[in-house]
């Protein structure tokens, strides 16, 4: 005769061989966990999830920031301007951030003569708007629902031009980032062409703690009745274990291959290189008739190498590219409230040059900020660290 077992201890009840007793999960009597099919799916999911957790992968960053370190930090393309400009920034408060800015410019083909912009940002909301002298508006609004979900709206309205509206949703998982965006979407459920506009979905997944692979799918139909266009881009990014160098590569749907490399050389020096190969087709025209008689594949390539030196009072950027362009951008804070900008570019092959000079004034809209700009705190005592405005 066996010894009686306490009834509340289910784990000691003898079982038929091959059939395991209910686990604590199963004994909770939920339909989903006791049902063999769904429990198999849930278990498999949990297994994969715990395996994913055990790999201790981190978030790879967004697809948009894939080669941010090179193309937006080191290179000066997005800072470059021509002609003369003056920015008058006025900060009203730092937390939440609220500032307005007036930009005057002459001698530039791209910058408007005057633009007013306003910015407001707190922990989960970012709103920015820019209205220029041609009455064209560009505005953006980002709202973070929680720390993993960000919705973005981007609007551009110009007089006499079609306006542009882009809706974007960013999702950050523990080891992947997904993004969905659509440009000028319109729906027509009762015609054959349900969706018009551009839709882009992308996913970047960390495979190992340092290596991420990604995919971007694009679908576009610009006008009703015109054939739709679709494409897939492949992305990859490798961050070194010490995070001091990054390699990223893209194979884009339009036939471009982009490889970039970034390295933090020392605490205030960064260097980067980017190579772009763009494959395309050019039509061959008949020399006599001028009619197209065929197409010829071409590849255009360019390589840009650059460095950025960042110090407390100044930032220097310089690039050289394989098409013979040498460019630099210098930014120096000469007073706590005044910075000077200089940028220049020389095209050695075409014998062209561009030049830009600018002044940036920082003014204060409140007493506290005015004192901070002069290196004092609200009571008039000197601050320990220089203000990061």
């Amino acid at each position, binding site marked *: 005769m066996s010894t009686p077992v306490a009834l509340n201890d289910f784990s000691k009840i003898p079982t038929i061989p091959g059939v395991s007793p209910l686990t604590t999960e199963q004994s909770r009597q939920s339909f989903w966990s006791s049902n063999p099919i769904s429990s198999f799916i849930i278990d498999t999911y949990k297994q994969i999830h715990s395996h994913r957790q055990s790999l201790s992968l981190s978030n790879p960053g967004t697809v948009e920031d894939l080669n941010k370190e090179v193309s937006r930090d080191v290179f000066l393309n997005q800072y470059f301007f021509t002609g003369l400009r003056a920015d008058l920034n006025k900060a009203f408060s730092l937390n939440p951030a609220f500032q307005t800015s007036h930009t005057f410019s002459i001698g530039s083909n791209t910058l408007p003569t005057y633009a007013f912009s306003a910015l407001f940002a707190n922990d989960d909301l970012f709103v920015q708007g820019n209205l220029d002298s041609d009455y064209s508006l560009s505005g953006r609004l980002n709202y973070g629902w929680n720390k993993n979900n960000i919705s973005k709206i981007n609007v551009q309205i110009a007089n006499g031009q079609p306006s542009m509206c882009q809706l974007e949703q960013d999702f950050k998982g523990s080891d992947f980032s997904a993004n969905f965006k659509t440009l000028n979407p319109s729906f027509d459920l009762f015609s054959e062409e349900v969706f018009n506009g551009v839709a882009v979905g992308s996913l970047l997944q960390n495979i190992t703690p340092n290596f991420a692979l990604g995919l971007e799918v694009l679908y576009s139909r610009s006008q009703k009745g015109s054939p739709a266009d679709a494409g897939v881009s492949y992305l990859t990014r490798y961050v070194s274990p010490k995070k001091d160098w990054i390699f990223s590569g893209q194979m884009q749907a339009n036939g471009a291959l982009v490889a970039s*490399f970034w390295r933090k050389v020392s605490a205030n020096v960064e260097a980067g*290189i980017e190579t772009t*190969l763009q494959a395309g087709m050019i039509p061959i025209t*008949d020399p*006599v*008739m001028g009619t197209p008689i065929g197409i010829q594949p071409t*590849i*255009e*390539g360019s*390589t840009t190498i650059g460095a950025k030196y960042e110090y407390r009072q100044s930032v220097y950027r310089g690039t050289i590219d394989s098409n013979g362009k040498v460019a630099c951008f210098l930014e120096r804070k000469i007073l706590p409230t005044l910075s000077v900008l200089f940028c220049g570019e020389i095209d050695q092959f075409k014998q062209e040059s561009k030049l830009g000079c600018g002044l940036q004034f920082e003014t204060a809209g409140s007493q506290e900020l005015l004192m901070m700009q002069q290196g004092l705190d609200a009571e008039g005592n000197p601050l320990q660290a220089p203000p990061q405005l």
Partner: protein
Amino acid sequence: MSGMFQVPGQGAGAGMPRKPKSKFQEFRESPMYTVLVNGAFFVAGVAFIHSPLMEMLAPEL
């Protein structure tokens, strides 16, 4: 004859003597050249940025 009804591509250059292109020139005009040159630039650039030469360009403060 205006050349209107000739085979396209034969009209203008047909009369001129065509110089035979050398192998190198042919290679220079092919898309492969761009790929190789830029590939070499990229590899050289990465090697340069990764080398101690780049560190020498970073001033010690």
